[in-house]
C-alpha cells in the first residue's frame, strides 16, 4: 500500500465529521424513540421501552398515520411509474430535434427550480377557480410530477448522452421495428438507470411536502401527516415514526444494492476474457 499524504488524514477526518453531522440527529431521534411510556420529545430519557413503536401501530389520538402511509405509498408508485414512462418518452423525444424542444426544455428547468409553494398555490387556485376538487391523486399527483418528471428527464439526458446509438442501428439492421428496438434493446440497456429514476420518482413523491400542501385535498399524504404530527403530537411516537421511515428507506436501498450484487455475481458465473488479447 502506498503512503497517504497528510491531506488524506485531514480530509478523512472532515469526511468523518460530515457523516456524523448527517447521521447524528437521526441517531438522536432513534435513541429518543426508545423513551419509556412517560418520556417526552427531548432529553433526558425517561426510561427505555418499545412503547412508542407499539403505540405507532395503534390508533393515534388524532390523524391517521397508516392511512397516510398507504396513500403516500400508492401515490409514490403512481408518480414513480408515470415518471419512468414520461421521462423515458421525453428522453427519447429530446434525442431528436423537434419544434418546441427548447421551449419544453426550459420549461422543465423552470419546473425544477420554481419554488414548490408556487406550484401548490397555482394549482390550488386553478382547481378552485375551475371548481374542481383537489385530491392527492389528481392535483397532488400532477403537482408532484412537475418536480419528479424534470428530475427524471435530466437523468435521461445523462443516460442518453452516454447511450451508444449504434445499438439501435444494430437492432434496426437486425430487422427490429422502432417499437421492438425500444422494447428489446433500448429499455433493457438503460434499465439500471431506470431503476434509479424509479427510486427517485418514488422517494421524491414519498417525501414531497410543499407541492402537496395545498393540492392534497381531504386526505393527508404521509409528509403532511408527519407535518401535522409535529404540531399535534407531543409524544415520542413521532420519533418512532421517524426511526421506522428511516429504516424503511435503508431497507429499500439495501434491497437494491443486494439485487445489483446478486446480478453481478450471477454474471461472473461464466468467467470473463474481457481485456485479454484473444
Amino acid at each position, binding site marked *: 500500500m502506498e503512503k497517504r499524504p497528510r491531506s488524506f488524514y485531514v480530509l478523512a477526518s472532515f469526511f468523518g465529521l460530515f457523516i456524523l453531522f448527517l447521521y447524528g440527529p437521526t441517531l438522536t431521534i432513534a435513541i429518543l424513540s426508545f423513551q419509556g411510556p412517560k418520556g417526552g420529545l427531548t432529553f433526558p430519557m425517561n426510561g427505555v421501552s418499545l412503547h412508542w413503536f407499539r403505540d405507532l401501530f395503534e*390508533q393515534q*389520538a*388524532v390523524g391517521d398515520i397508516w392511512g397516510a402511509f398507504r396513500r403516500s405509498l400508492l401515490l409514490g408508485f403512481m408518480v414513480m411509474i408515470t415518471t419512468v414512462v414520461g421521462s423515458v418518452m421525453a428522453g427519447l423525444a429530446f434525442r431528436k430535434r423537434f419544434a418546441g424542444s427548447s421551449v419544453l426544455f426550459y420549461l422543465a428547468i423552470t419546473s425544477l427550480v420554481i419554488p414548490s409553494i408556487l406550484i401548490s398555490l397555482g394549482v390550488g387556485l386553478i382547481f378552485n377557480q375551475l371548481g374542481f*376538487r*383537489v385530491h392527492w391523486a389528481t392535483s397532488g399527483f400532477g403537482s408532484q410530477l412537475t418536480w419528479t418528471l424534470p428530475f427524471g428527464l435530466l437523468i435521461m439526458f445523462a443516460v442518453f448522452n452516454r447511450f451508444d446509438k449504434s445499438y439501435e442501428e444494430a437492432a434496426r439492421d437486425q430487422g427490429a421495428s422502432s417499437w421492438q428496438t425500444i422494447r428489446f434493446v433500448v429499455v433493457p440497456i438503460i434499465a439500471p438507470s431506470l431503476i434509479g429514476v424509479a427510486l427517485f420518482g418514488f422517494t421524491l413523491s414519498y417525501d414531497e411536502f410543499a407541492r402537496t400542501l395545498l393540492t392534497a*385535498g381531504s386526505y393527508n399524504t404521509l409528509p403532511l401527516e408527519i407535518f*401535522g404530527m409535529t404540531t399535534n403530537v*407531543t409524544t415520542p411516537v413521532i420519533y418512532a415514526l421517524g426511526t421506522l421511515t428511516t429504516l424503511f428507506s435503508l431497507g429499500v436501498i439495501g434491497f437494491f444494492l443486494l439485487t445489483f450484487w446478486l446480478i453481478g455475481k450471477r454474471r461472473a458465473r461464466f468467467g470473463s476474457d474481457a481485456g485479454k488479447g484473444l
Partner: protein
Amino acid sequence: QEIKDITLRQFGTGVSNLNDVANKVKEDLGFTLAMTALDSDSVTQRAATQPDSFDIADIEYWICKKVWPTGNLQAMDTSKIANYDKIVGIFKSGKLTPESEIAQGTAPHSVGFVDGPDGNSFADEETGWMTLIPTIYNADTLGIRPDLINRPINNWSELLNPEFKGKASILDISSIGIMDMAMVCESMGEIQYADKGNMTREEIDKTFAIFTEAKQNGQFRAFWKSFDESVNLMAAGEVVIQSMWSPAITAVKSRGIPCVYQPLEEGYRSWGGGIGLSKSLSGMELDAAYEYINWYLDGWVGGYLMRQGYYSAVPETSKNHMSENEWGYWFEGKQATGDITSPTGDVLAKAGETRDGGSFYDRMGSVACWNAVMDENQYMVRKWNEFIAS
C-alpha cells in the same frame, strides 16, 4: 344505501378531531367519520377554499366569521337539535348568566345565527337557524412554569417582562394572537382600547409596535401554531411563560412537569368551537350529520372533552358521563376526591387538588374578550405578517 356505508369527512384542529370520537360514532351510530386534523390556518383555508373536501367542519367561531360569507356552509335548523334548549347562554344570547356582560371580540352568539336557511348575514338574536352548533369552548390565559419562575404571576403584562427574556412565547395565529397582545398592552397600561375586538388602525399599529420591540429585544423564544407545539415548548423548558390552552397545561402536567394555568386579574381570553355542515351535504348524509350532532351534544363527547379541561356546550348532558369526582373537579372547581385522569388514563391531579381558575362560572364569568375577526382584519393580518417577519 345503508347508514353503515356512509362516510362523513370531518376536519378541524387537533383539539377536537379525535379518533376516539370517530370510533365511538361508528359504535353508537354505525357510520364512518373520517377525521383530518389540521392547524387553525389550514382549517380556515380549507373551509373557505375547498368546500368539496369536507362534509363537516369543526371550526372556531371567529373562523366562521370568515367562512360563512363564502357560502360553503349551510345553516342548521335548531328544531332538529334535541338538546338545543340546554345549550349554554353564551352561544345563544351571549350571556353566561342573565346578568353577565358580553365580552369584547367576536363573541360566539354574534356569528351564531342567520336569518334563514339561506341567510347571508349574521342575525343579532336566535332565529332557529344556526351557523355552527357549539361543541367546545374554554377560557384561555397564560401558562407558566412555577418551578422556573418561583414567584406569583398575576397580570398579562408579565408576558413582556424582561425577566423572561428569551423564555416567552405567543401563538402565531393572528386572530387569537392579537387578542393576547391586546390583553398584555392593556395590562401594561400602554393602550386603552375602545374595543379590543374591533381595533382601530392606530391601536393596531401601537400594539404591534410594542410587540415588535419586544421581539427584537429577544423576548420570545418561539411562536407556536398548535397547542401541542406549546406543550413541547413548555415541557422542554424552552419557554416558561406563554399564552396557553387548558389541555396543553394538562399535557405538560401529565409528564410530571409542573405547569400552572394562571388566572389573571384582567380576565381570560375566550374561544369557542362548533360544528358546521358543508353546503353540499344532503339526503341521507345530511340526516346522518344531524344524527351526529345530536349524539355530540348528548354528553359522551362532552364528558370526554371536559376531562381534557375544555367545556361542553351542554354541560348537563356531560354530567351523565362523568363521575361525581370528575364533575366536581372539572366543572364545579371543587377539590378532587380521588385521582383525576385524562381520557387516555394519565393521572392529572390527585385527591385534594383543585383546578386552576376555579369553577365553570368563575372562569367563564371573567372572560375579558373573545378571539376576534375585526373590521380592520386585513390590515391587522398584514401587520401580523410584518411582525412575524420583523
